[in-house]
């Protein structure tokens, strides 16, 4: 998954990446050349007392250093460019893909998970690309180059490399392989501690009401203990890495001197070469060490890549029509014919055999217990889901054939969970109709019983709204969300349990004000309270995804046992005690 993601999205940057590799190659060769020059200074300059040679070799070293820094900086430039461009492109691809998703795919992943995938996960993979471009690429070049250069200095000592390099890799590998599972445990423990804290904060009234502070502290202490235990283990392993690496590096240099000495003594090797060999060995080992540490990022990035690719590979279950209908007759009308909806692989359908018609000026109410399929039913109209069989048609045209933009301008949806976007009251109200005048906004607020509190805000229509609408109360959020649908003047209104957070008086006033406003529109109201829906032209009683009753309030009271049960529960429960 990781390699596929990288292959696909790094392709546009292949020339940039080639430049990175070439630059790193030159830079690495340059830095490998320095010890060689240093060896020359010792062997040809110092040993023979040739000061002129020392100076000219020094000049060369300086020049080589300049080449090295130029190449490194250029490599960082191109590497950052490619990595950040990669991140931007992947983010964009994920965002675009999710934009095409239907409510089903969004629900399947969950909005929070999709957010994490398009932000943090992309960042993780992007970080790996950065590190690879700036450091990891150089490691094998440095390793191979260092070995070549070292062997050029002296072949006889090459066996030392065969000992030192594996020794380093094995010991780091041993420590790291012990750390990886601990890291995972650590994350779980951090989550556990945070969950306890989260629960304590959200449930603080309950905790105090039931006098459970002591118990909560114990619960927290247990989680904190477990976390600290793991952190101690991880920390102790981490503390081991540096001393072990240093020991191997230092022991290697001692070994080089000891075994090199006899080769120098027998004249097979020069002293300068010995010093250079030592430097190369250090460079090789350092680059191996870097490579190992960066490789530790790979497992994590791989998990992230998998999560990203999962999103990119998911096809939307609702696809726009190939040949969209753009002409419809003007009358507002909504019709469902023998509609069934089931989740893929689910044994029982959520909805089945649903047929009804709503025409202009009519109000249809849908009532039923939780899980009866009311929200799903409403979602079929704007194609948040597509019916698995049967047809949903708006103004006589199957919604699947209608131009999506055209379909959406015909529909005003007030969702069950009223969601407001960050901005101002006005920007939220104009969401579906950017050209609406201030008068139109006030009118909609008036109908939605929101005028009073908006007027009470010092900034009025320009009052700021926080993301999600968290700075207004649930009831205010709901009323603003209703006003928003009113401003876009749709033909079909879908109120999905939109009055639940209003107190009864407000609910009644709102519905009364709504009636003249929606006289030309087809209205669907999903409700829980009988009082909210009792005056609808037609009431549909849903139970377990099928229609068990349809008619007016009076008709249903005579004929539909489920409806009677609902009505009784709301009117008499108090006196049943």
């Amino acid at each position, binding site marked *: 998954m990781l390699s596929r993601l990288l292959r696909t999205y790094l392709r546009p940057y292949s020339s940039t990446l080639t430049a990175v590799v070439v630059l790193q190659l030159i830079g690495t060769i340059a830095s490998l050349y*320095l010890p060689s020059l240093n060896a020359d200074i010792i062997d040809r*300059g110092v040993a023979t007392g040739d000061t002129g040679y*020392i100076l000219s070799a020094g000049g060369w070293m300086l020049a080589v*250093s*300049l080449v090295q*820094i130029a190449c*490194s900086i250029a490599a960082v430039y191109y590497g*950052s460019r490619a990595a950040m461009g990669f991140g*931007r492109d992947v*983010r*964009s691809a994920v*965002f675009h893909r999710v*934009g095409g998703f239907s409510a089903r795919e969004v629900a399947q992943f969950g*909005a929070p998970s999709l957010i994490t995938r398009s932000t943090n996960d992309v960042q993780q993979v992007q970080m790996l690309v950065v590190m690879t471009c*700036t450091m990891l690429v150089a490691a094998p070049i440095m390793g191979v180059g260092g070995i070549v250069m070292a062997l050029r200095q002296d072949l006889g000592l090459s066996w030392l490399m065969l000992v030192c390099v594996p020794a380093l890799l094995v010991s780091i590998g041993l420590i790291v392989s012990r750390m990886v599972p601990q890291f995972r445990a650590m994350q779980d423990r951090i989550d556990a*501690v*945070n*969950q306890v804290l989260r629960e304590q*904060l959200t449930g603080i009234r*309950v905790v*105090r*009401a039931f*006098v*459970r*502070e002591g*118990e909560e*502290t114990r619960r*927290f*202490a247990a989680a*904190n203990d477990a*976390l*600290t235990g793991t*952190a101690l283990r991880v920390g102790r392993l*981490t*503390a081991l890495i*540096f*001393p072990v690496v240093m020991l191997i590096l*230092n*022991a290697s*240099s*001692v070994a080089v*001197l*000891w075994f090199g*000495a006899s080769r*120098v003594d027998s004249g097979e090797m020069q002293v300068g070469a010995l*010093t250079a060999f030592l430097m190369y060995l250090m460079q090789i080992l350092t680059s191996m060490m870097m490579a190992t540490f960066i490789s530790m990022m790979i497992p994590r990035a791989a998990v992230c890549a998998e999560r990203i690719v999962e999103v990119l590979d998911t096809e939307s279950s609702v696809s726009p029509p190939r040949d969209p209908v753009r002409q419809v007759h003007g009358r507002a009308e909504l019709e469902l014919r023998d509609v069934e909806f089931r989740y893929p692989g689910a044994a029982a359908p959520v909805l089945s055999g649903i047929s009804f018609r709503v025409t202009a000026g009519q109000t249809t109410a849908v009532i039923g217990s939780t899980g009866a399929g009311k929200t799903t039913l409403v979602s079929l109209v704007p194609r948040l889901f597509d019916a698995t069989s049967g047809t949903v048609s708006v103004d006589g045209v199957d919604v699947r054939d209608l131009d999506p933009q055209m379909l959406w301008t015909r529909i005003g*949806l007030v*969702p069950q969970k009223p969601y407001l976007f960050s901005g101002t009251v006005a920007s939220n109200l104009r969401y579906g109709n950017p050209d609406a005048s201030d008068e139109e906004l006030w009118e909609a607020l008036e109908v939605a019983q929101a005028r009073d509190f908006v007027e009470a*805000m010092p900034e009025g229509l320009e009052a700021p709204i926080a993301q999600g609408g968290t700075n207004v*109360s*649930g009831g205010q959020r709901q009323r603003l969300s209703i006003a928003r649908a009113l401003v876009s003047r749709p033909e079909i209104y879908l109120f999905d349990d939109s009055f*639940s957070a209003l*107190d009864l008086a407000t609910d009644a006033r709102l*519905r009364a004000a709504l009636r003249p406003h929606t006289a030309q529109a087809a209205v669907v109201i999903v409700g*829980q309270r009988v009082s909210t829906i*009792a005056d609808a032209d037609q009431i549909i009683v849903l139970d377990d995804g099928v229609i068990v009753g349809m008619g007016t309030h009076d008709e249903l*009271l005579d004929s539909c046992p489920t409806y009677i049960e609902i009505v009784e529960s709301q*009117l008499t429960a*108090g*006196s049943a005690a």
Partner: protein
Amino acid sequence: MSDRPVTTTRPPAGGGGFGRGPFGGAGMPAEKSMNFGPSMRRLMGRLSPERPRILAVIGLAVISVVFAVVGPKILGHATDLIFSGVIGNRLPAGTTTEQAVQAARAAGDDNFAALLARMDVVPGRGIDFGALGTVLVWVLALYVAASVFSWLQGYLLNDAVQRSVFRLRADVEDKLNRLPLKFFDGQPRGELLSRVTNDIDNVSQTLQQTLSQLLTSLLTVIGVLAMMFVISPLLALIALVTIPLSMVVTAQIAKRSQKFFVAQWANTGTLNAHIEEAFTGHELVKVFGRQPEVEQVFRDRNEELFKASFGAQFVSGIIMPTMMFIGNLNYVVIAVVGGLRVATGSMSLGDVQAFIQYSRQFTQPLTQVASMANLLQSGVASAERVFELLDAEDQSPDPADPVPPTSRRGRVEFEQVSFRYDPEQPLIEDLSLVAEPGHTVAIVGPTGAGKTTLVNLIMRFYELDAGRITLDGVDITAMRRNDLRSHIGMVLQDTWLFGGTIRENIAYGNPGATEEQIQAAARATFVDRFVRTLPDGYDTVIDDEGNNVSAGEKQLLTIARAFLADPSLLILDEATSSVDTRTEVLVQHAMAALRSDRTSFVIAHRLSTIRDADLILVMDAGRIVEQGTHDELLATRGAYHRLYSAQFSGALVPGDGEVSGEEVTGVRG
């Protein structure tokens, strides 16, 4: 509608919260600490219980650095021995060193003569492997010891840090239990959560990563510098120049990259916010046809982020090569100057080699210290935010001489109570009421009337501004909070359950309850029925997703929890919305079971549920505008009557409050 204080007291535009809230600019993650020095000292102060360990760490670090620093110097001796052997091999055997020096002078090779004169060469003899072996064994021993000490130091430091972080977490948790609820109302919950989780994590990571490295890095710089001066003051001075040089360069680059980093985090924030909105409001974006605009905004912000993060990555990426370059520069100069000095005999080759190793060791910790500055800044900023929380004012302590808990009958009296969340905004003024033992008191009224506030005051979640509340004649402030609350059972609108099994959640109100008691409570509150349909029964784990248990069933669980606690006083905040009608009936029955023989305060949303109440209080704007029984209030045709009519909009309200079963058919639109 929810009328918890959060929504009623904050200005509708939000943002500000309480003026006297201790955290300025809440919600904005602090990027830089405000008071670096004092906060840093305080953070270090938190390590003081670990003093013995810290002292040991410092001692071990000094030893290990000294050993590591002396190593190359001794290794230089080894190189000298090898070099002498090489030179000695070249000279004819049997002569003395002086003769060889003179021979070189005679040949006009003054430099070589000087070099020879300074060396310990025996002409004709090769490398002294005995001496070399001894030196190398010493070096090896030194290195092994340095590594062992360094490991011990890291081990102990890790322990000290982890224990300190453990205590910091525990202190914060403890603090949460002592803070007044007023404090929590003034804070966005996410912000507070972020302090107790993310910020503490950040502090812990910073301490772990910086402390050990900072210590060894600083010691290494000092030690290496000392050794350099011992070997050659001249070369040491050259190397010393690199310190200010690298500092200036790093500071310059860091200053420039800082700008990009700030922009990068700001852009990440705005982009993430946009993504979050677009995904959370996904269906609205679609249905309102805003996909193109949303994509456009995304493209712009994504491009901005790209520019900023590229800049940040590039500019900060320059630091490493530049430091390497300075290191190389240093290396070249030392190689040349050192080479010249060896050639003229004023320095040995081994010393030059040792010096090169030192200069390598020298630049590395410098880079580390430089890169750590940022990390430390962010860690201290987090610590500051945690300290702010720890410094917030506690709730008033329990009375020193509390009235002991005795069995209570549950008579509650409010005597001229006044209370406001916001000093500027009056809420409850001069309110008096009496709830007789065993009576049910229902509170109705529009949103924001102060219904929930009233029960919050009984629980003593908040302190009164004036007047007093008594329970069986005892002022509640004269009791310990826990004694008071253990007499009261509460069922709230938000069905708070914690991540645990159903059994644990029911037993929450009475940890010592037996299995029989738990099941009896479950049966009395209709929990038993649905729990038996779950595959894991009472062991079913309630999680955040909560898919296995519906909203209504959760409500039943909270009722069972209150039932098991068996309080003498009950507070019920009726939750109604999005509970399906069948469960709703069960909830009503369960609440009724709970109420029997107990003094109960019921915050009612649905008037049909409170007709039997002994006393109905109609509240508006913090005052009780009407009180009486259902029939009395309907007869007065006042506020209650209006509310009652509105509930059955357009419905005929049966005359004289004659409410009977027939009413069902009387309702129509």
